[in-house]
């Protein structure tokens, strides 16, 4: 009999009951809550006279709507202020731990979970945000959920779920200098498509993934959802355990040693059954950039944009819409495309290592006069650490705005937005039409290093030219 995957093991351990619908009632070990998708859920609890079942397994913060220029209260935007008051009241009333403005733990929910040690292997995690898949980097099952499901988790600490199939994605080969985890995941989505993962959990494996730091693994798992996979994960190993050791909410002393035994036990067995296996050779990859309006519409920086004839008929209309929105011409090189805005941030790429790598390029150089550039650290703690290393000065002296922590221009719920048809080189995860706050604005996804290089040149370039 074949062995079990990590998905199978964690699923079985957390299965509470079979529901009359045939779904599984699955216990959720950690529920992360943020200001935008939770107020309606708390209202529903009040209406139905329900309490939070396991308050100490729920943690809340604010990230989506917070301004990053000035975080002085009350916020200038009244709607944002109302939303802040709502989560503060809800956290207090229902007895949930809350990391608010001014707290070192405040930040993008998918950055602070790992950095506080809350995110650990072998957990089931849920959050009302699709990029919850990020936490799978630790070997957990981490589900993005809607608001009605947020209510379910608050009221019962469970989700009604249907099992997923598991696809193992073997990534092999040494990444060339200047090629990062972001390029790997964009290449995976390009290969498998933005809907290729529907019905699947993605298990990322192979020597390339095994060599990655936790921060790189998080960038990979973060974008699973862009490939249609609701969750993505990586089997935990020594890199994972060492990352967690000593963090505030990590197990201590003898608990930690026992925890490692548990964490090792949830890894996929060598002979585990997979519903699908895919291989990717990463040794040949070059820095990736998107040319269209889905994360799968990506190419290497030295490639030409695809001709319409290259698309199967069913995808041609989407490609035409993408070219129309972007104002690009099929068959042309993408390198050299002028940009207006450079954004380094988001739950994909706003961690300390992202900022360090980008700063290597920025140091001693100036942002092009035609470019508005900003760096938004993923958490208050990332911001403080970066400042202790002097990264803020490197960015500021080059002409980047150095901001406070939040989601910012990834989804533009705060004042950080594109204007009109501006083109943004962005380290975020979605290039959807209107995503960055202007219905005609344009987003080109890439690694933070590529954003930094584009900011300096004022146009898309192969950042490796700066790294030599």
């Amino acid at each position: 009999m074949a062995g079990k995957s990590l998905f199978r093991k964690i699923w079985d351990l957390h299965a509470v009951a079979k529901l009359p619908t045939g779904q599984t009632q699955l216990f959720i070990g950690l529920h992360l809550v943020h200001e935008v998708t939770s107020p309606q859920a708390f209202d529903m609890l009040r209406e139905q006279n329900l309490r939070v079942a396991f308050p100490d397994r729920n943690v809340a913060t604010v990230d989506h709507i917070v301004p990053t220029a000035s975080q002085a209260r009350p916020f200038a935007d009244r709607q944002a202020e109302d939303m802040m008051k709502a989560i503060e009241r809800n956290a207090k009333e229902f007895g949930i731990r809350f990391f608010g403005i001014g707290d070192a733990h405040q930040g993008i929910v998918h950055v602070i979970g790992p950095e506080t040690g809350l995110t650990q292997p072998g957990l089931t995690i849920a959050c009302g945000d699709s990029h919850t898949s990020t936490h799978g980097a630790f070997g957990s099952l981490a589900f993005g959920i809607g608001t009605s499901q947020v209510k379910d988790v608050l009221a019962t600490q469970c989700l009604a779920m249907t099992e997923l199939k598991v696809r193992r994605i073997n990534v092999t080969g040494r990444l060339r200098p200047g090629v990062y985890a972001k390029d790997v995941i964009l290449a995976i989505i390009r290969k498998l498509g933005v809907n290729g993962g529907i019905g699947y959990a993605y298990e990322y494996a192979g020597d390339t993934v095994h060599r990655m730091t936790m921060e790189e693994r998080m960038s990979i798992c973060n974008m699973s959802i862009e490939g249609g996979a609701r969750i993505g994960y990586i089997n935990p190993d020594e890199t994972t355990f060492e990352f967690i050791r000593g963090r505030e909410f990590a197990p201590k002393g003898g608990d930690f040693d026992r925890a490692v035994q548990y964490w090792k036990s949830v890894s996929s067995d060598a002979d585990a059954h997979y519903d699908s296996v895919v291989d990717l050779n990463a040794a040949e990859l070059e820095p990736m950039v998107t040319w269209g309006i889905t994360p799968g519409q990506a190419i290497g920086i030295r490639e030409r944009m695809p001709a319409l004839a290259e698309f199967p008929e069913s995808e041609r209309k989407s490609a035409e819409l993408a070219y129309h929105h972007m104002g690009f011409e099929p068959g042309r090189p993408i390198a050299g495309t002028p940009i207006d805005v450079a954004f380094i941030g988001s739950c994909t790429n706003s961690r300390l290592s992202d900022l360090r790598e980008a700063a290597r390029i920025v140091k001693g150089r100036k942002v092009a006069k035609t470019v508005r550039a900003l760096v938004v650290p993923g958490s208050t703690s990332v911001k403080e650490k970066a400042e202790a290393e002097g990264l803020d000065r490197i960015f500021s002296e080059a002409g980047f705005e150095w901001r406070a922590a939040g989601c910012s221009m990834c989804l533009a719920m705060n004042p950080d937005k594109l204007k009109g048809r501006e083109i943004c080189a962005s380290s975020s995860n979605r290039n959807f039409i209107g995503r960055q706050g202007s219905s005609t604005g344009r987003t080109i996804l890439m690694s933070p290093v590529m954003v930094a290089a584009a900011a300096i040149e004022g146009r898309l370039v192969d950042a490796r030219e700066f790294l030599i």
Partner: protein
Amino acid sequence: MKITEISGTGIPVEGNDIDTDRIIPARYLKEITFTNMGKYAFYDERHDSKGELRPHPFNDHKYDGAKILIVNKNFGCGSSREHAPQAILRHGIKAVVGESFAEIFAGNCTMLGAPTVTMDEREVIDLMAAVRANPGTSIRLSLVHRTVTYSGKTVPIHIADVVQKALTEGTWDSTRLMLENMEKVRTTAGRIPYLNRFQAAEG
């Protein structure tokens, strides 16, 4: 409430990979209730930058009162925002028929008692064409028989067994179902290592 059948006229919104930012732009997520979401469905697709109406099925009066939204592949991809199905349903839609759906979007619809059902590409194209040619075409979606019937033609649909059961038996309120199992929830919590200082891992 049991949902076994939905009848009404249709409205086609053509295109693959129509994401949740297109269904409802993030700036409308700043409201702390879902009450107004119906106004914002496809807002940026329906209005130009000056706020003037643009051609879009949701602006086209010939589709007024439609209950069945017809879409193509990977509809609702992107964000987990329940605001997206809330916007569509509060606009008056009761069911969505398409080639495929993003998982979180489809799950959110189920939680709200709205079926998302799939049909073959060819059948979706035909249904869209029929509705465009005659917006008054009456469509009957049977969750019991797993069919769509229109213009004297009956086409098979696919709906996940759990969703079919939840809607036709009126058990899609998962909170209520799961609250009945709270004793089992506590038993499960008792065997999960990280809730018990990893003592279970030793055994």
